[in-house]
């Protein structure tokens, strides 16, 4: 059974903007799934419809086999949502926010308190439980939203930009927490602007742009589509000009730094061999950009070109 099944989902807002143009998407149980796309692509609209915050114009959504139209309550029980914006009462206490949310799912008060304690402790907020939510730091507020989303033990957790504006240390600890949840069997759907995050965490990925899914595959297959990778090499001695290396496109970024485009058909051994022949010693090497980021930009640019051609014809 799929955790999430979306069929021909459309959404046209009252101002005429067609945010979704009939998307199909399936997320299997236990997956760690990334939904990526540029701003305005339709990610938040899709998540909004799945979490009942946005009315759909057409299509079907099923969550663990429960239709959002016909078995809404059953479907909703399966989902926990962590939205992009803080959406709790800033004047309420941290503990009350989580316990109240459990109550909205019909969880009796004693169990609600146990669940709230469990997740507030796991997310490092137990000491802050009597603080008003507005007194928390940005990172703590994000963790509060995760605790609130988990309090009813959903099988599918949807996170919309969960690490936006969060410092690196906290981001890494949130990644570990989410990986742990996924390993326990929870299905996770994530939208993010940090493509490194998607590449590190997710095994499957869909890219949405202009309201259509332009790619939906596993991470390995997607990265294999990358034809050229660009590496940055830090050199031991400065150069006057970029060296000629057969089969590679080389640019001099500054006197001691080279940028080399390596086609997928070429090996790094041959690159280093060619550099050694010219007595160029490399101290260190790194990717110019995240691999997924390069691919994402190319896919979105290609889709924009196609959309432009369609509009012209």
């Amino acid at each position, binding site marked *: 059974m799929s955790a999430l099944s979306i069929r021909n989902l459309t959404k046209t*807002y*009252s101002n005429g903007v067609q945010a979704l143009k009939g998307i199909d998407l399936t997320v299997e149980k236990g997956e760690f799934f990334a939904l990526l796309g540029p701003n305005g692509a339709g990610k938040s609209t899709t998540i*909004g419809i799945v*979490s*009942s*915050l*946005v*009315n759909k114009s057409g299509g079907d959504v099923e969550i663990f086999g429960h239709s959002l139209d016909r078995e*809404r*309550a*059953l479907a*909703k*029980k399966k*989902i926990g*949502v962590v*939205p992009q*914006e*803080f*959406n*709790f*009462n*800033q*004047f309420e206490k941290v503990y*009350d926010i989580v316990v*109240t*949310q459990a*109550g*909205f*799912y*019909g*969880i*009796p*008060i004693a169990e609600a308190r146990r669940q709230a304690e469990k997740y507030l402790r796991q997310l490092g907020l137990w000491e802050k439980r009597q603080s008003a939510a507005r007194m928390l730091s940005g990172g703590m507020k994000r963790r509060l939203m995760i605790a*609130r989303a988990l309090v009813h033990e959903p099988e599918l957790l949807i996170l919309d930009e969960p690490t936006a504006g969060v410092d690196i240390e906290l981001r890494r600890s949130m990644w570990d927490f989410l990986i742990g949840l996924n390993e326990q069997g929870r299905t996770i759907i994530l939208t993010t602007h940090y493509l490194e995050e998607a590449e590190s965490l997710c095994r499957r990925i869909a890219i949405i742009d202009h309201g259509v899914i332009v790619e939906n595959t596993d991470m390995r297959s997607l990265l294999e589509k990358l034809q050229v990778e660009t590496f940055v090499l830090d050199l031991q001695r400065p150069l006057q000009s970029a060296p000629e290396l057969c089969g590679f496109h080389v640019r001099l970024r500054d006197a001691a730094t080279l940028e080399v485009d390596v086609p997928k058909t070429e090996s790094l051994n041959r690159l280093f061999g060619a550099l050694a022949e010219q007595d160029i010693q490399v101290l260190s090497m790194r990717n110019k950009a995240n691999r997924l980021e390069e691919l994402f930009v190319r896919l979105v640019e290609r889709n924009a070109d196609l959309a432009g051609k369609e509009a012209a014809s």
Partner: protein
Amino acid sequence: MSFTEQWVAFLTLVTKEIRRFVRIWPQTLLPPAITMSLYFVIFGNLVGSRIGDMGGFDYMQYIVPGLIMMSVIQNSYGNVVSSFFSTKFQHSIEEMMVSPMPAHVILTGYMVGGIARGLMVGGIVTVLSLFFTHLTLQHAWITLSVVVMTAALFSLGGFINAVFARNFDDISIIPNFVLTPLTYLGGVFYSLELLPDFWRAVTLANPIVYMVNAFRYGILGVSDVNVYTSLGTIALFVLGFYILALWLLRRGTGIRA
């Protein structure tokens, strides 16, 4: 959701609502106590002593039921309109929308929260009035029915207002420009018998007249209108407002894009 789960969700929402207005009591419970005390001092003691009897009671006794009802109306309406609009404004309404709580549980929860504040303020005003005059309850069930149904009606009115409100100005228009004039002209301070025929007929089109008079009948045993007609009319309005509010909530009007 099973019935038990719905009951838990309902109690959670009602508790949340009551906790909200109790937490901010200097904004919610204190102001009506001060305002109504001033009414008692000025209109009851200072001016009232020169007016003499009205409807067979001294003026202070005559206006107390109307003032209690005025505070119930204003506070039940104000509670729901501000609470529900705040949840929209802060997006915390999404906490309920993502949950499996049915629309009727959400609506009833807000309505009961509004009734609770209306009754609490009504109780405070009643206790304060006893420092200024003597009251005997003539018809307990009628008093209770009228005050609960009136609080329910205005809670639902506040909810509908909040559904359509887009900014904070929108939640003050109805209380300031509709509720206050209708309440002041709703027979709180005078008997309809004092009015010329034309204005008496006009006044009878004001629904608050029926609520104030039915409540006054419950406490003092006198009314300018038929009490059972009043009760029936209020009940019909409660039903109509409930159906309308539920329909708006299910559609997601003002809530879902």
